[in-house]
């Protein structure tokens, strides 16, 4: 997070009017950064950025190339591709987290950004959940059931695992549709590579 504590959205768009419109829509709820081309976008990008809106067709570096460099830098940000044509699942295979087809309405833009932020939350909850489950499993694998029944630590862990499981179910808004599902799975493979 940056100084303002608002989530940070980076808009990479070569048409100034379009970029300004997005900014106008988003600036109430997010800290917005703007870049007119891929190189500028990469300069503006740092660990504070939560979501990148990336125009696919730009002079200079294309959206695809920018995406590749973002992924190389291993920043945790989510990237939505903005495109003039409705793409297939293939686009998700390339590593985008979501796509928006032009022309974009305000509502749609908000929905996509919120959804990507939700998904980041889901990922970190899942990570936290896993850590608890692993601890619990270690106890189960090394202690007898009598020892487990006596253990306050185990009791507390079990409770927290149950709570986290419920929290995760509540955050499942992020996995309702196909692109969420695929992008979340892709995120798992990326984590593993790190």
């Amino acid at each position, binding site marked *: 997070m940056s100084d303002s504590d608002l989530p940070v959205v980076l808009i990479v768009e070569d048409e100034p009017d379009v970029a300004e419109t997005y900014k106008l829509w988003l600036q109430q709820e997010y800290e917005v950064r703007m870049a007119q081309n891929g190189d500028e976008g990469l300069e503006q990008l740092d660990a504070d950025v939560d979501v990148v809106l990336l125009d696919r067709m730009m002079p200079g570096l294309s959206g695809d190339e920018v995406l590749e460099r973002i992924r190389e830098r291993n920043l945790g940000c989510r990237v939505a591709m903005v495109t003039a044509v409705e793409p297939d699942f293939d686009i998700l295979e390339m590593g985008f987290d979501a796509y928006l087809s032009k022309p974009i309405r305000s509502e749609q833009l908000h929905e996509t950004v919120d959804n990507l932020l939700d998904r980041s939350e889901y990922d970190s909850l899942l990570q936290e959940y896993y850590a608890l489950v692993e601890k619990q*499993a270690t106890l189960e694998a090394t202690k007898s059931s009598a020892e487990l029944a006596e253990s306050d630590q185990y009791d507390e862990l079990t409770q927290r695992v149950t709570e986290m499981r419920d929290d995760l179910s509540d955050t499942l808004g992020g996995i309702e549709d196909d692109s969420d599902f695929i992008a979340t799975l892709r995120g798992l493979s990326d984590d593993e590579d790190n």
Partner: protein
Amino acid sequence: MKTTERQTMYDLTSVLEFDALSEVRPGSSILISGPAMSGKDRLAYDILADGLREGDGAVVVTTGDGAGSVVEEFRSLVPDLDDSQLGVIDCRGEGGTDEDAIGNAHVHHVSSPGDLTGIGIGITKALEGLHNAGNEQGRLALVSLSTMLTYTDKKTVFKFCHVLSSRLDSAGYIGVFTIDSGAHDDQTLQVIKQAFDGMIDVRDAEGGGREARVLGLAGEPTDWQDI
């Protein structure tokens, strides 16, 4: 988990006669655990074949059998099978299959059992294909998690199962996932179990034959029972 009330419960008792399996909630994911050669994969296929006879769709994610032989297998299990009710995600990384062998089944090839994105895309396309073929409900089998665990670590497999379970939940499907209990350490098995709503344990019975018990789906763990 999100409730999918418009859908009816799944009754698995014609495959395994346990009360705990008479009303399995849509969205449930079940781990089938047992030693090698204890009939886990067979059980998973039987659960899907039973569904096909009841009009449910079936999706098989396979790391061992090729798509062609999976389709063949289901054609023999369900004599009047309509291929379009079946989806297969073949993760062996061996490329295309003979067109005739797969008929109208929704087949997708993935480069390896460790390619989670590819598997996700395959499942998505299969679910879409089955939906378009008129299936509102269905059953998915992943055979096997043990092979996946040789390609990727337990953390990733755990998360994969969790994410896939959520997807199945929103589709109103149930899932059965097999694991070879002899191939992994206790801690790995305990971790993987936690990603599931319930478990069917299978083992060889002392006097020959096999027995099973059901844990976590309804009430207390059941007793071992011959199958």
